[in-house]
């Protein structure tokens, strides 16, 4: 286990470097000039040039990157080009919302996906199975933003069960926070639920036909125990991989859902920064996201080892 941790930490560095370098370059390539945006509508060419100088935008791209990297390593992520706030604090403000949303979506995806997967596996090739499969396809096909809009118009604007937009952190007011999280979590997590359900069904069907399950039946165990304890545990290794992939997918889709529901999270922050070519903020968020992905990978690996004794 220790060796695994070490390996993962070591892989952290090249991954982060590659990710941030890649994004830096892409933003650099994008049309537009942050200096112009900052200078405003009526700025003169002279003013723009001055701002460019101040921000170091005239230097070669790799030099700019190196500056950023050396500062980042010592903990200084710089200041936002648009708001002049420290990038670290901007991210710090935006992070809780995204985290809570992703966790919410994960809960929706895993719980709904597992129940649907188990039910359709146990009743494979029946009407129930077909119904679940149809729902899954629908869930997978629906774009998150569209689903979000539908949910908002139905359950928020029409029925008034939940607020339409906005966000309250769990830490400040748990009860209220939950009402704000329900609809966005469903919007983000629905396609994840569909994917998990589909994959789990396939895994379970295979496992339930295997030799050791037959032994468990011969032992006199109830089908319920066989499915929920043994078969599900057997499916954990492949499913944990799927769930890890889902989390990574969420980090991308979260942008859209935050936009629909007006949640001030990393996605919103990122979109704004991209529009303004606010390099420091973009880099900061990318760094964070890359780190999250690595942590998720590590958690998945740890899970394998916890569940399957043969892998240790």
């Amino acid at each position, binding site marked *: 286990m220790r060796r695994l941790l070490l390996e993962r930490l070591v892989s952290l560095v090249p991954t982060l470097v590659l990710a941030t370098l890649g994004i830096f370059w892409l933003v650099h390539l994008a049309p537009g000039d942050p200096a112009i945006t900052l200078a405003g509508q009526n700025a003169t060419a002279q003013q723009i040039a001055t701002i460019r100088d101040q921000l170091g935008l005239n230097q070669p791209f790799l030099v700019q990157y190196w500056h950023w990297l050396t500062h980042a390593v010592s903990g200084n992520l710089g200041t936002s080009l648009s708001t002049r706030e420290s990038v670290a604090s901007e991210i710090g403000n935006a992070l809780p919302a995204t985290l809570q949303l992703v966790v919410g979506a994960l809960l929706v995806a895993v719980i709904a996906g597992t129940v649907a997967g188990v039910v359709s596996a146990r009743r494979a090739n029946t009407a129930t199975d077909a119904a679940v499969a149809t729902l899954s396809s629908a869930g997978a096909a629906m774009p998150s933003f569209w689903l979000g809009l539908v949910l908002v118009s139905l359950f928020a604007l029409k029925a008034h069960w939940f607020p339409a937009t906005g966000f309250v952190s769990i830490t400040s007011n748990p009860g209220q926070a939950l009402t704000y999280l329900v609809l966005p979590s469903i919007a983000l997590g629905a396609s994840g639920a569909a994917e998990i359900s589909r994959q789990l069904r396939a895994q379970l069907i295979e496992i339930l036909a*295997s*030799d050791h399950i037959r032994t468990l039946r*011969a032992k006199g165990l109830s089908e319920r125990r066989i499915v929920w304890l043994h078969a599900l545990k057997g499916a954990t290794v492949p499913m944990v991989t799927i769930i890890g992939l889902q989390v990574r997918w969420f980090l991308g889709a979260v942008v859209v859902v935050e936009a629909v529901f007006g949640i001030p999270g990393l996605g919103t922050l990122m979109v704004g920064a991209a529009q303004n070519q606010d390099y420091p903020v973009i880099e900061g968020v990318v760094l964070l996201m890359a780190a999250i992905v690595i942590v998720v990978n590590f958690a998945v690996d740890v899970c394998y080892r916890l569940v399957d004794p*043969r892998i240790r």
Partner: protein
Amino acid sequence: MPPACCGGHAGESHASMTAALDVRSLDAYFQTVGGEVQAVRDVSFTVAPGEIVGIVGESGSGKSVTALAIMGLLPAGLSRVSGSAVVGSRDLLGLSPDELVRARGRQISMIFQEPMTALDPLFRIGDQIIETIRANQQVSRRAAADRAVRILTDVGIPDAAGRVRAYPHQLSGGMRQRVMIAIALVSEPAVLIADEPTTALDVTVQAQILELLAELSREHGTAVVLITHDLGVVAETCTRVHTMYAGEIVEECGVDEALSEPKHPYTSGLIQAIPRADKRGQPLYSIPGRVPPLTSMPSGCRFEPRCEHAREVCRAPQPLLQPGGRAVRCCRYAELALPGSFAGIER
């Protein structure tokens, strides 16, 4: 001429009084794309407490399907079973799914061929035994844990107290099969079905496992149905043997009789096909042809296409005949003098 089949089976009159397992007219059908096919037809046999009975046959004989049918382990939507299988005055085939779950492990158990894949790889063997105990009886976890260690010792696993924490992949094939036996017998069922339990094991390990089975059966009075393709195994472990071919029982009698004076050409053919040191240099008898596919079984004797003694009369449906104490599904048995184990061998 001996009387025609009376719908029962050899030894019925006395055995059914005390039989641990009494199977009557078991049929098993499978749903295929082409419709329903019958895999097992009219199988009947009994096993007394403490007795080890063999069912011998090659692939396609229906021996495994018979076992799975009795246990109710055939795939649910795709199969159909009729007949009866009575254990302790309850017909397993008539039980509700819940009652069947309760009967398994407690009244009747089964062990399978591949010890490598038969145990759940993600759980410790001690936990798997404890789980079995607690599924079938009301005992505390503590008591179950103690039972688990004791039964592991009984099945010959060294350092049982330490081994309870092992995972299946840490054990050898022979050890795993012992664990399987422990799991099957820990709730003291009246009947144990062993489906090719030693086929995948080395010969020295096989000998140990067979000896263990015999010993446990003696000690606990467990009735054992031993399914195998190996007549040697049958010879050394069973008292009676049923030969199955193409889904039917074609012969039933004591093991010694089967080996010295088989009455069905298929049984005789199987015996002749076994290579042995004392047959060095002689060609073995190889039964020509193949088992007919389930979808096109002959309506008469199923072995007729491959039998060197076949006559016109064999084309008619063959009932199970019962000449005094044994059973044979061959209308010509009385006229044939079939070679047994010692044909063609210099003494």
